């Protein structure tokens, strides 16, 4: 096992983002010098982090990376990660786990926007809140997340699981506006409340255990079903879009 500890050093301009897509288990195997970017300057990893490496590994599965300190502006950590483990003690910046295909990312604090964007596999666990576009897609693309699991223990921002095309997204708290918008396939579970879920949905499943506020008028009510001993309302839609998705909600309100 290799354990890599990265402790953020104090920074003069702490809000200028750092782009660190090089922080993945695989890159520490190669032994090459790892660079990150602060704005338009490329810097060696150890200028930004105090780096401690214990043990050794010859495959990414055996690498664990632990980030500590203020990592809230560190973007793209774990991008394209395919195996191994990244543990983030605090908050993490945007695009954590983009295109991830395997392994585990565990975030102790909050995650900024686009957590697990276009994720293909693996697991992301966020103990705090996730900001907008959690498990979503890219501008202009037709497919968002296609596989794997994202689990948020806090709340999610707006456009959660936008363009979801596979995999499972579980939000234990509330989701914001337009969760599951353009959902094609896969499963979105929201344990709390949300607003205007699943607009333009064409397939897949979304279950909301709380209240769906401002439900869209273009979901056809199919009846009720029992989940965990409680009665839920079952809808199909979005009929604005020839949609065949299933939207199951505990309760809902409309903008009438």
């Amino acid at each position, binding site marked *: 096992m290799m354990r890599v500890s990265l402790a953020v050093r104090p920074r003069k301009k702490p809000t200028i983002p750092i782009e660190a897509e090089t922080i993945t288990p695989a890159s520490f195997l190669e032994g090459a010098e790892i660079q990150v970017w602060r704005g338009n300057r490329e810097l060696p990893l150890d200028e930004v982090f105090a780096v401690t490496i214990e043990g050794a590994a010859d495959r990414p599965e055996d690498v664990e990376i632990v980030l500590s300190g203020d990592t809230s502006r560190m973007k793209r950590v774990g991008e394209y990660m395919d195996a191994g483990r990244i543990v983030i003690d605090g908050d993490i910046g945007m695009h954590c786990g983009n295109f991830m295909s395997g392994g585990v990312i565990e975030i102790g604090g909050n995650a900024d926007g*686009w957590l697990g964007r276009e994720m293909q596999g693996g697991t992301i666990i966020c103990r705090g809140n996730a900001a*907008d*576009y959690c498990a979503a897609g890219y501008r202009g693309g037709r497919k968002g997340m296609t596989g794997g699991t994202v689990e948020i223990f806090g709340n999610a921002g*707006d*456009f959660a699981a936008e363009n979801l095309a596979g995999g499972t997204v579980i939000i234990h708290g509330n989701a914001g506006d337009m969760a599951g918008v353009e959902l094609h396939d896969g499963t979105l579970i929201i344990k709390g409340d949300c607003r205007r879920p699943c607009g333009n949905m064409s397939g897949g499943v979304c279950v909301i255990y709380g209240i769906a506020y401002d439900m869209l008028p273009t979901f056809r009510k199919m009846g009720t079903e029992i989940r965990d001993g409680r009665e839920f309302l079952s809808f199909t839609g979005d009929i604005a879009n020839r949609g065949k998705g299933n939207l199951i909600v505990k309760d809902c309100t409309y903008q009438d």
Partner: protein
Amino acid sequence: MKVMMNTGRTVDQGANVENKRSVAYRDETSTCFMHFFDMMELGIDEGENVLVASPYGRVVLTAAADDLIKPGTIFVPYGPYANHIIGGETHSTGMPDFKSTEVTVDATDEPRRTIYELMEELGGLPYDH
């Protein structure tokens, strides 16, 4: 009183947008258009000042009655006064909530400030040559 603040372009705002030091621009962008009923509830008349506050800041505007405005909402022409109390949240779309900020409106005796006074409050230095 809690209301939803809408902002937008108006002819008078646009006609003076290249001359922000003008009284006309200041007067237009510091006007709080609201329904007569809401003004009655606040106990104010046309031309009196109101204090409009949001979690991001507070600003004094001059009330004007407009029966096109729905009760429970106010309209403030797009400009520095409205922006003084709008947050930087864009829902990750790049676009702030210019048309839907929840604010409180109260009657006030405080005077309305100039644009440069607003800018000074935010750390700017007026230029008035």
